[in-house]
């Protein structure tokens, strides 16, 4: 740990003067960048009076990798490999809006089977992301057991994703025009169109059963727990209008009572073929954010079940030219990523790479509400609130 700030630890030097009013200066508490609770390298500089936070300033940028500048010197297929590292917990979902944006600019129609596969893998990424969240918030509050149960089921989902795509976190499975159609590497092997692995669909169905079981466990173990409720109910309330003004999206926004889900409003993937509910909370406190994500896992598993039933046969990738050159134009496509709204604004000037790629990430906006939200909260509540916002620093810093 860092040694104390000399300027404020005045008690140490026996300068206490007993007077009518006891002067207790505010303490500057510096959380991070290395800290067990912040989800990555986030630094929080807080002015603390006893246990109450007077002011808080988040310092981000420790993981800034310069994605937008980098995208200007990469071709579109190369950018595919880069973007799933933005929000590494839900790797597959980061690629989708970029793919859809590029395909729309080029006017390519993605085959239905490829769209269904994308959808299944996106929902699996959502389940994987939410299971991490569902286990880490109780862990920060002191309950270590939900972590083990949730991550055990997550392994099933990750194994499935790995079986289909070859990677657990960074699948790099999307191609412009569909998903990866060929297996085998090297120029000497004849490229064979390989579909999903054998048994993938059956195993997916059984994995979803397990996922629903663990969600039921979580309801009993965590949601019904008196102490958890005391720690999270009424803590960190984000009112709906503030959430909208700050750009908070995804489960955080829905927990504040706004039933806004991009899967229902935008058609970047064929979600309209499936029956699922938009999960909304009522208060916008930490408890609601947890409950919303818990229910979203169940809904995602429903979608996967339906998609696995109805997946059509067909091609995995549309015919695209060998060298991808996107015609001149601008487009903004957004998707409902597990953490919120993720969008790509592509400005194309006809080159092999974008002229400008603006990446709109969910966690950046979700985190910007922090300095407003944490004024007047207690230090232990800080941990609960940070844990409930579900951000990851790669998403914040890009």
């Amino acid at each position: 740990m860092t040694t104390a700030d000399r300027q404020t630890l005045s008690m140490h030097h026996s300068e206490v003067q007993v007077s009518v009013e006891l002067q207790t200066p505010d303490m500057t508490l510096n959380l991070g960048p290395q800290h067990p609770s912040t989800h990555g390298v986030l630094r929080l500089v807080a002015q603390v009076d006893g246990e109450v936070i007077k002011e808080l300033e988040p310092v981000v940028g420790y993981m800034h990798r310069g994605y937008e500048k980098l995208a200007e010197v990469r071709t579109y297929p190369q950018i595919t490999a880069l973007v799933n590292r933005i929000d590494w917990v839900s790797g597959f979902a980061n690629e989708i809006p970029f793919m859809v944006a590029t395909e729309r600019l080029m006017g390519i129609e993605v085959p239905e089977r490829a769209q269904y596969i994308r959808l299944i893998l996106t929902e699996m990424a959502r389940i994987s992301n939410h299971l991490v969240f569902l286990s880490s918030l109780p862990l920060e509050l002191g309950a270590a057991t939900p972590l083990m149960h949730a991550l055990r089921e997550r392994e099933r989902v990750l194994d499935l994703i790995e079986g289909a795509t070859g990677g657990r976190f960074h699948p790099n499975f999307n191609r412009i025009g569909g998903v990866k159609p060929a297996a085998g590497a090297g120029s000497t092997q004849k490229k064979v169109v390989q579909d999903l692995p054998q048994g993938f669909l059956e195993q997916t169905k059984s994995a979803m059963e397990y996922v629903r079981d663990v969600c039921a466990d979580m309801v009993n173990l965590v949601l019904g727990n008196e102490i958890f409720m005391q720690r999270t109910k009424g803590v960190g309330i984000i009112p709906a209008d503030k959430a909208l003004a700050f750009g908070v999206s995804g489960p955080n926004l829905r927990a504040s009572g706004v039933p806004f889900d991009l899967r229902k409003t935008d058609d970047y993937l064929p979600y309209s073929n499936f029956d699922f509910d938009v999960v909304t909370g009522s208060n916008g406190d930490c408890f609601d954010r947890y409950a919303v994500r818990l229910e979203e896992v169940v809904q995602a598993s429903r979608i996967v079940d339906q998609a696995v039933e109805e997946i059509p046969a067909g091609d995995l990738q549309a015919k695209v030219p060998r060298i991808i050159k996107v015609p001149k134009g601008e487009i903004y496509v957004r998707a409902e990523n597990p953490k919120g709204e993720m969008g790509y604004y592509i400005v194309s000037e006809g080159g092999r790479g974008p002229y400008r790629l603006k990446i709109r990430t969910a966690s950046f906006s979700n985190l910007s509400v922090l300095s407003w939200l944490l004024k007047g909260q207690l230090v232990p509540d800080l941990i609960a609130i940070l844990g409930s916002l579900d951000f990851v620093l790669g998403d914040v810093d890009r």
Partner: protein
Amino acid sequence: MSPSELASRIAGAVGSDRFSSDNGTAKVHIAADRWVDAHRTLSAEMPYFSWLSAIDWATEVVVGDAPESEDIEPRYEVLSCLGNVENGESVVLSTAISKDDPSLDSLADVYGGADWHEREAAEMFGIDFVGHPNLTGIYLPDSFEGHPLRKSFALLSREVKPWPGTVDVEPMPDEEGPSTENPEDAG
């Protein structure tokens, strides 16, 4: 409503006559001095602030492919994206500011979320947002010099090794071909 209807309606609401809806994205251009007023007018109907950023339009680029358009007017185009959560509409508002003295009024009073986005745009492009409460850098270290997302900012790695163009093209399933390609042949 469709993007084109949305674009024309928003344009009418803010008093602009330049709008487009190419590729399904409703985009409305606003004059720089009406930027904050336009947002204030729209804030009731579009309370969701998605993002704010900028584009550096330049004819000469240090890295990457040169732009195809021949008549690019050098400017910074500041974009902001607003949304409506009832019906899922979203519109991109844009304005142009000059490169010599890039400054624009800040949206921090209208939308709280503009705070961080403007800090990022200021840091990356060198745009001054007048009236912003705390326009310090957000991503880069304090000792960093320059504004990275400007087209005139050279990526250090590209100084050492020039832009290689297209390499490692993956052939289509029914084609066989070399896995690497000479950049000149890529056309």
